[in-house]
């Protein structure tokens, strides 16, 4: 707890959904330049954990501190330094990618010129879709719009829930590049994914939620947990 470089510290965290306790007594800390990789089977509470970390959900017990302060008490400051990408993209179907990007920038208080938005989207591989309503974009393309927004927010801490879903091989490589870049420049990442990830050279802090999934011999075990409350 006294590590001054650990900007994000989590102490004795417990999470409940409905009547079910997903995890208790979770502790970890994250320094600049580190990536926390949350692992665990389906329904073990990865998404729930990330939402606690964003401050959107309240923990059952325990504390999350950012720069030494509980995030519940300093929401606005924390949100200025944090960006979140969940299962949902948070883009509006009616607007074009450019409009979406500019809107997000405006709402976060740092308006963005049209040219800058175009550039950001081009970099992420959406050069030809700039003027289509997002509704007609494919799943992967929509994901890319959201990723462009994330990069543009310029936050120190990224919280990413399965950022690779829906992306093809090129997309995955692109995200890996973004992550490597961000961490190299002293950024912090908390993320989860079910897919393998090629992030050599990045300081990865692993975190397991629920039991480690191993070979398929233990079907009985799996069933025993399926309805455990």
């Amino acid at each position, binding site marked *: 707890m006294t590590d001054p470089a650990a900007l994000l510290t989590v102490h004795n965290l417990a999470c409940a959904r409905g009547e079910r306790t997903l995890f208790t007594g979770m502790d970890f800390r994250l320094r600049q330049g580190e990536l926390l990789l949350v692992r665990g089977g389906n329904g073990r509470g990865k998404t729930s954990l990330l*939402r606690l970390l*964003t*401050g*959107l*959900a*309240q923990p059952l017990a325990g504390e999350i501190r950012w720069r030494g302060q509980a995030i519940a008490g300093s929401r*606005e*400051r924390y*949100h*200025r330094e*944090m*960006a*979140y990408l*969940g*299962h*949902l*993209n*948070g*883009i*509006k*179907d*009616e*607007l074009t990618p450019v*409009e979406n990007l500019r*809107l*997000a920038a*405006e*709402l*976060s*208080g740092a308006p963005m010129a049209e040219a800058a938005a175009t550039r950001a989207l081009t970099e992420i591989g959406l050069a030809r879709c700039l003027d289509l309503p997002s509704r007609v974009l494919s799943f992967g393309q929509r994901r890319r719009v959201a990723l462009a927004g994330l990069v543009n927010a310029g936050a120190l801490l990224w919280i990413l829930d399965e950022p690779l879903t829906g992306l093809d091989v090129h997309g995955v490589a692109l995200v890996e590049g973004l992550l490597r870049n961000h961490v190299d420049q002293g950024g912090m990442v908390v993320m989860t994914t079910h897919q393998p990830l090629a992030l050599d050279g990045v300081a990865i802090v692993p975190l397991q939620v629920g039991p480690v999934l191993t070979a398929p011999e233990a079907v009985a075990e799996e069933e025993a947990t399926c309805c455990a409350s």
Partner: protein
Amino acid sequence: MLRFLTAVIRRDLKLAARRRGDWLTSQFFFVMVVSMFPLGIGPDPAMLAKVGAGVVWVAALLASLLSLSRLFADDHRDGSLEQMLLSPNPPVLLALGKALAHWLIYGIPLLLIAPILGVQFALPADAIAVLMLSLLIGSPVLSLLGSVGAALTLGLRGGGVLLTLLILPLYVPALIFGAGAVDAAVAGLGAEANLSLLAAFMVMTLLVSPWVAAAALRVSIE
């Protein structure tokens, strides 16, 4: 702060402009509910004039309720509500901005359509003026209180009906004072008493409901 508020309002106006179909439908619903009544209660002009204000007001309540059920729901479904709550701004401003945008988009047109409907119900000219005035003062109440209900029922199954159930009782004062003002005008009495009560109610909801809606949003988004 203020920039965030205007950004939220501008955003919603822009989105409304993109889905003009929805917007027109809502106005049409208002017209249709009102027009349904003479069919149900018969064509006697004297009676129509008596019930006119009430019918228009009730229809305004119902129309705004219908559009309110999607006030936060669309943004919730595509995740942009989450993102807005995570922006470094107080959620109260978000709730206030959304409610104000709803009023601009759905409230203002109601009061522009109302005179035509008033004529259908054989309301005298000064009563129609009072009707518009009462809607002008009263419709923000619908949007503001409605935003509380919309935030509370966000993401629930059957949310639309539930919203109605929660919010209609709270709308009652607005309905009574609003329709009462017009009735007083029809009866040749002064409408001021009712209108000032309505204005007081409006100010109260303006002060209270954004806070409650913001709290409800944070609860619902969990």
